[in-house]
């Protein structure tokens, strides 16, 4: 197989492109995305709404809506026993087995992710039964154990209907459900956006704790940079369907090389903010049916030059495991260091 030199890569995405067929034309939602996810690693995907984060993750599980097409690329997954899986070539039956037992997902809308007319326990039994685990006793024991780990009252929640639980509780039920089959990869799609700040805190604490106990890799979608900084080992910035910068969390936040990453960082409020004000990124994300030429960010970019308007920048190494696609890397870095983010999220 064509795997990287790292032998602990569990998920390798290579040159993945996904479009939606719309009445106006083809909308390129994810464009040539590549990254590797290592065992136990947490990768945070950050970027504005509509930048393709969710499409990318739905694509990883092949849950795209019917009007979406995978234009090219590979998704390679390595099972615990070392066997490789080519996700894009699985047939329906294999795909059903792959989903959830190898790669599960906690969806953004926790409130609507649970079937309102059946009990929580039936959703656990359903999931287990779909993967050949028909011994209810074992499923129950596993579920109750997971509920304890995510700090829920096990017996009560197990027998409850979704509407009897609060938003934060439902989010944790989903988390427990995602871990039921002990997957290697868990995708968390903005798990903290729909809940209040205290619940958010609890969920993050719970996540950090069980990540260590159960040893799974995580893809973490968020537009909350402080949460991303706290959770992630690696951060990838997405803009207009492309991964424009990817690197270790510390590197990326302290030495950003892409103007868009810098823009996101400058838009985060800081406690010690003195004279300097919050800077928002002007304009809005581009039309993905007819994207701008050159670097797609140039329209909104304060560093843009003539070159940016015509020539798309390649994703190049700028440090150890750190890649960025920007013609003005040096100026961006200088600007970032001048405005040193002393209290950037750690």
């Amino acid at each position, binding site marked *: 197989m064509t795997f990287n030199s790292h032998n602990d890569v569990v998920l390798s995405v290579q040159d993945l492109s996904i479009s939606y067929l719309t009445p106006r034309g083809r909308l390129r939602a994810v464009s040539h995305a590549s990254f590797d996810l290592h065992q136990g690693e947490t990768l945070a995907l950050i970027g504005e709404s509509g930048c393709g984060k969710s499409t990318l993750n739905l694509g990883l599980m092949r849950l795209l809506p019917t009007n979406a097409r995978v234009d090219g690329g590979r998704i390679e997954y390595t099972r615990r026993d070392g066997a490789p899986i080519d996700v894009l070539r699985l047939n329906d039956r294999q795909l059903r087995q792959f989903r959830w037992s190898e790669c*599960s997902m906690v969806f953004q809308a926790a409130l609507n*992710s649970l*079937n309102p007319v059946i009990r929580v326990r039936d959703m656990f039994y359903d999931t287990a039964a779909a993967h050949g685990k028909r011994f209810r006793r074992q499923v129950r024991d596993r579920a109750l154990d997971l509920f304890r780990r995510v700090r829920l009252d096990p017996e009560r929640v197990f027998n409850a209907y979704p509407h009897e639980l609060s938003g934060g509780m439902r989010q944790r039920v989903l988390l427990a459900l995602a871990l039921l089959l002990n997957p290697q990869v868990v995708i968390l799609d903005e798990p903290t956006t729909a809940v209040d700040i205290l619940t958010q805190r609890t969920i993050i604490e719970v996540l950090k704790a069980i990540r260590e106990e159960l040893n799974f890799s995580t893809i973490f979608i968020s537009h909350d940079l402080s949460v991303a900084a706290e959770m992630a080992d690696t951060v990838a910035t997405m803009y207009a369907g492309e991964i424009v910068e990817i690197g270790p969390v510390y590197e990326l936040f302290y030495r950003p090389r892409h103007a868009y990453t810098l823009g996101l960082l400058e838009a985060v409020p800081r406690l010690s903010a003195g004279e300097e004000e919050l800077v928002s990124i002007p304009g809005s994300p581009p039309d993905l049916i007819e994207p701008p030429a050159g670097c797609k960010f140039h329209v909104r970019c304060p560093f843009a030059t003539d070159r940016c308007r015509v020539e798309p920048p390649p994703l190049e190494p700028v440090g150890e495991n750190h890649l960025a696609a920007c013609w003005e890397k040096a100026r961006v870095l200088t600007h970032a260091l001048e405005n040193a983010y002393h209290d950037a999220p750690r």
Partner: protein
Amino acid sequence: MEATPAPPVPLEQEAHMPRPGAAGLLRQGLRRIATSYTFRVIVQGALTLWAVTTFTFVMIRQMPGNPVDIKIDQLMQTRGMTYEEARNMAAGLFEFDPNAPILEQYLDYMGKLIQGDMGQSISSAGTPVIDQILRYLPWTLFSVGSGLLISFTLGVFIGMAMAYWRGSAFDNIMTAFASIVYGIPDFVIALLILLVAGVQLQLFRVGSVLGGVDNDIQAGFNLAYIGSLIKHAALPVLTYVLASVGGWILTMKSSTISTLGEDYITVARARGLSEGRILTAYVGRNAMLPLVTRLAISIGFVVGGSVIIETIFLYPGLGRHLFLAIGSRDYTTMQGVFLVIAFTVVASNILADLLFGLLDPRVRVGGQQS
């Protein structure tokens, strides 16, 4: 301002002390029953029935051409009775004295009704109304009930299939079909079946399918009799199905489409559930919810909705019986049938409320979980 002497403080406090005891518990228990949803629904239903009964009672006595006077006139003319004789006979038939105070008549009527006595039929003297209702009601329940069941089942499956294959040829054809039959009144469908299929195309002999059952077949639990029952019920049932299936199809389709867009369906797919399980427990059960209320309301109109169809097909059900009763000014019968109609509507609405609670835990009523 007038200064009122303050009463001794301890006494005042004592007066406000809660006194737990048998009486208090009883009061608490009664309050819980009175505030329970099921109890309220049933009381509401009973009140509705009482209102309908009272209204028909008053209406029939206030109508121009008082039925008693009409009967008296009839008797005097056809049998050559004197006014006195005719009046006594009419009073016997109606089982009330038309000259008695209205309140007395009303109490008399209600008292008998509670005991299940709806009085005697006017047009066929000597037959209790309740006996006639019990004789005709099974026919209507059988034909309209099976029509409703067939069209509901068809509608649910077709509507769901259309939502799954949205935009396909099947979907487009069925949408057109459903909209067209939904727009045609049921009596037009009945007449079209009789005239086009029966008279013009001669697909069946019109004379042989009208009525309830062939007269020459011995009633009993045997194939010939059941076959005859089905043969005669087929056209009315077909009419009911055609007239109502469009509504079920369209409702189920839109309900399924919105359910398919719910996040929990995507999550169920992500969990690797089989399509069969998703179809039944996730899509089907949620998409059916809005239809359950409609189904119960339709059950309520089983009796009342069959008047014209049964008349067209000469089907011996309660609807045709009501039609004949209206024609012959058989007021006691009308009163009885109206009461049955009101009862089915009220009862099926109560059923809908309770059934909905069973299917959807979010509106489950009464038993608040602690």
